[in-house]
């Protein structure tokens, strides 16, 4: 299986009273809480951590896009990925992703992803999220009633821009361009692998299956809450006749590893409570702009309330999504902590049960320091990773992984590397 190191880049110095005295971590979080000089250090620490993860042997390092957000300091993940492309060699770069409906014109995404694919020598995974309502509709003012239509059209335009050899005209409902002819073109042909992070909507599952894209469930609530969604995904794949290749799916999990169980319990308390107490403090008025959720999904949600309760009872996976105290965070499975053997055993069981071949790991979360992040990352790489590597590979092939240029054809990059020596 593939083990991928994911960074959200949270602002690590939100005040202790944040939850009590500030309405939201997202959209209208106050600028007085942001210190650019502290952010200078945060960004550099975070990029050190990503490069460290690459050095430790993770299959991919992952970045994502958020706006006006106190737990996600990457309005442009492409900027970070561009630096990582120069300072890593073999690790895949997973940009998870660009909210393609936000770009005007969307060919901007086709261009920048093609740049990243060229700079990295074909190591890009291209993530195409619709984007959260907070990011898309409120922070960037996109119309919720048109967002998904724009998303689908942007997708079609980007794919055509990547694959059409000749200059073409695009006369879409929302985008019109007389001349589309992007330079550069991506290294990977016909295009980089496309991964789609999404919620639990049946429409997204079907679309990913139809397009042969990877579906990723990037929940912050861990494997217990995610199990039902992934079971739904695989039920749908079975129903529409797709194979059960675990590499069709990705899943996100917070993990904290230490030499002893007690040490793990002690080390990760503060960052876990920081993340779940402060970083997920979102004003509910920003959660549901009208039209963002399709009527089919609304209908399924209303109709399944009774069914879901019964299913949760049957599968024993009724999980609270409001825990903020450490023991509840662990009990609900938001964060997995323990010794390397304990963590490996649980992740192996989870990956098998969820049938997920791409496991994205948040080994930095909340206000975790660089030192602790690197400890967590190194221990995971040395003692957990070897116990998970073989999973699925004897049975399934990952058709959705980047295919970089041959090593001998790649540029010899001489970007300075100071951190690795630390």
């Amino acid at each position, binding site marked *: 299986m593939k083990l991928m190191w994911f960074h959200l880049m949270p602002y690590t110095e939100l005040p202790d009273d944040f939850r009590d005295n500030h309405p939201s971590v997202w959209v209208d979080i106050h600028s007085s809480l942001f210190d650019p000089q502290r952010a200078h250090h945060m960004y550099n620490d975070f990029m050190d951590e990503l490069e460290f993860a690459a050095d430790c042997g993770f299959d991919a390092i992952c970045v994502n896009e958020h706006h006006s957000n106190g737990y996600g300091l990457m309005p442009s993940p492409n900027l970070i990925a561009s630096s990582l492309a120069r300072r890593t060699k073999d690790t895949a770069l997973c940009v998870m992703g660009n909210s393609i409906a936000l770009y005007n014109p969307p060919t901007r995404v086709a261009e920048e992803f093609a740049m990243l694919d060229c700079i990295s020598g074909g190591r890009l995974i291209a993530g195409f999220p619709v984007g959260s309502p907070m990011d898309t509709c409120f922070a960037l003012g996109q119309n919720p009633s*048109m967002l998904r239509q724009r998303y689908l059209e942007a997708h079609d335009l980007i794919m055509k821009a990547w694959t059409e050899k000749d200059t073409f005209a695009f006369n879409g409902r929302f985008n019109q361009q007389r001349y589309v002819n992007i330079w550069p073109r991506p290294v990977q042909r016909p295009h980089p692998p496309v991964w789609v992070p999404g919620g639990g909507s049946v429409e997204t599952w079907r679309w990913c299956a139809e397009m042969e894209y990877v579906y990723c469930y990037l929940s912050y609530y861990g494997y217990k809450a995610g199990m039902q969604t992934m079971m739904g995904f695989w039920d749908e794949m079975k129903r529409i006749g797709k194979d059960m290749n675990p590499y069709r799916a990705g899943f996100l999990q917070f993990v904290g590893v230490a030499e002893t169980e007690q040490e793990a319990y002690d080390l990760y308390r503060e960052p876990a409570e920081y993340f779940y107490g402060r970083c997920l403090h979102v004003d509910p008025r920003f959660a549901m702009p009208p039209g963002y959720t399709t009527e089919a999904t609304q209908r399924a949600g209303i109709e399944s309330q009774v069914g879901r309760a019964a299913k949760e009872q049957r599968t024993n996976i009724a999980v609270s999504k409001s825990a903020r105290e450490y023991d509840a965070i662990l009990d609900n499975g938001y964060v997995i902590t323990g010794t390397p053997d304990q963590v490996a055993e649980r992740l192996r069981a989870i990956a098998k049960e969820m049938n997920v071949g791409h496991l994205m790991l948040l080994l930095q979360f909340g206000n975790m320091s660089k030192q602790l992040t690197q400890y967590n990352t190194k221990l995971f790489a040395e003692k957990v990773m070897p116990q998970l590597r073989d999973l699925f590979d004897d049975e399934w092939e990952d058709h959705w992984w980047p295919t970089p240029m041959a090593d001998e054809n790649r540029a010899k990059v001489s970007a300075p590397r100071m951190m690795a020596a630390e």
Partner: protein
Amino acid sequence: MDHSETIISAHGIESRVWRKGSGPKLAYLAGFAGLPKWIPMLDALATHCEVNAISLPGFPGGGRGHLQLDSLFEFALATHDLVAAAGCRGATLMGASVGGALAMEVAAIWPDSVGKLVLQSPFGLYDDANPPTDPWAQRGDKVDALMCETEGAYNALIAAPGNADAVEWPIETVRAREASARYLWPNSATHVEKRLGRIVCPTLVLWGDADKVQPPGYAGALRDGIAGPVTVETIAGAGHMAELDRPDAVADAVARFLRA
């Protein structure tokens, strides 16, 4: 006497029209949430004129036609066509709140199609120094107090009646908000001030004095910008949805205007 219900069609968009009363025709475009049910203000209004409550695309009774419309102009065109299909071309056009934004556009773009215009707290204007409240970024339990002075009045409008489909009713409620967002997102500024000079018909502007969504002071901008004669009336004790807070006061003001 109950109101009648007719389904009309204009260029592929179907719409429900509720009618009541007799006399001069008045086309009514409802406000935020549309008309999920008949409201007493329309009864009061129907004692003075023939009320034609036309459902706008996406609002209750308006199907999903909003999904075909991608701009304010396309919404205005559909509204113009539906008003004509309802037999109300040249009649009085009354629009409240989000419906008022479209009534203004119709009167500005097709001045000959509107005999008289009634605007009740219309969306469309935006003053940096005194901006409208964002009606789509609200906690569900705060909307009632935002919309009305009378506690529970808005919630009663959108509450599912006993015979309603428990699944479809709440979806229809969300759809109405989506429809308004589709042409007014993100800040409800339509820049109609550039077109107000094209409105030449007699116009009545009504505003609840306690409107917490659209600032009552915006009435002055309409009075100053509209080319035709403008009467401004303030409805005391009413919020944004004055038709729910003070139904008789709204209907009486309109009746006086129709007689004038």
